[in-house]
């Protein structure tokens, strides 16, 4: 799966957890999930679990802790899929 498709899937995953979905329309790889999208830090775990389901991957604690931006998530997912 190419990075653009992962990005689009990530945006869909983040939608239910983002207070202002308009922020997602301007989202880029550098968008910080907690600071820019105002996703609750506790809900970041839900986002990662959803990623596991959507992409059929497993993310461990250490890997989950590295995810701060959409780009971090894309890189991790991309590396796991390839």
């Amino acid at each position, binding site marked *: 799966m190419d990075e653009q498709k992962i990005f689009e899937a990530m945006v869909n995953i983040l939608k239910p957890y983002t207070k202002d979905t308009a922020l997602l329309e301007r989202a880029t790889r550098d968008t910080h999930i*907690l600071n820019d999208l105002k996703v*609750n*830090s*506790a*809900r970041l*775990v*839900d986002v*990662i*679990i959803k990623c*596991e389901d959507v992409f059929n991957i*497993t*993310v*461990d*604690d250490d890997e*989950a*802790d*590295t995810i701060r931006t959409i780009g971090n998530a894309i890189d991790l997912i991309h590396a796991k899929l390839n």
Partner: protein
Amino acid sequence: MLSSRAKALLMFQNGLGRLMAVVLAPFYFALIRLMGYRIRDIKAVRAACRREFEKHEGPWLICANHLTMADSPLLSYAMLSLWTHLRVFRWIPWNLPERNNFRNPFLVLLCYLSKCIPVQRGGPRTEMKQTLAKCAYLLSRRQRLLVFPEGGRSRTGRVNTENFSYGVGRFLDNDQEGMRVMCLYLRGDGQAAYSTIPAFGERFTVLVDVFTPEKSALTGLRAQRDYAGHIIGRLAEMEDNYFGFCRQ
């Protein structure tokens, strides 16, 4: 994994706290009395906690609902008598307060001497890992850790069963041998929603529930969510009991 230096510093903090408990414990107790706070059936609450602590030395994960910033000292006051604070310092739980609430140097010192490990919610990964490693180390030494599983004060005034943090699940997912969980539900009669401190002269009810966590069939983040959900569910049940029975 915690470095030897970090372990030594933690034990130094523990030792210094133990020495200063002679001054600080009476100070906290006097402050609570001065504020006019009273715990309903406090002798029964302390007896229940003592019975559990005598039955099982540790590790203990103490999980409580969170409505005010005075919850930690109030819970410690409710669980253990002044004499127990002085005699069995190890029974006093370690706390994980939000760092941003302790900017004043006096409060930082008070926090340090009162078995606190400040955390920064959503803070740097390395710091969070270090804090988790400290907690794991303390639990491996059969210490008690007091956490608020909701991840903050309940904004609705009720245990938040929808939007809670899964962080507490990490402690249970770490395969700590012999871990037991003590759930405490603390609420003042006049406490309708969350606040900074309880009202002057407030009278509290404390409910105690103890269980041994069962190993989750899930793994990783899902297991953590499972454990956290179980604890939150218990607290919510205690809250239902409180409103259904105690308030009558």
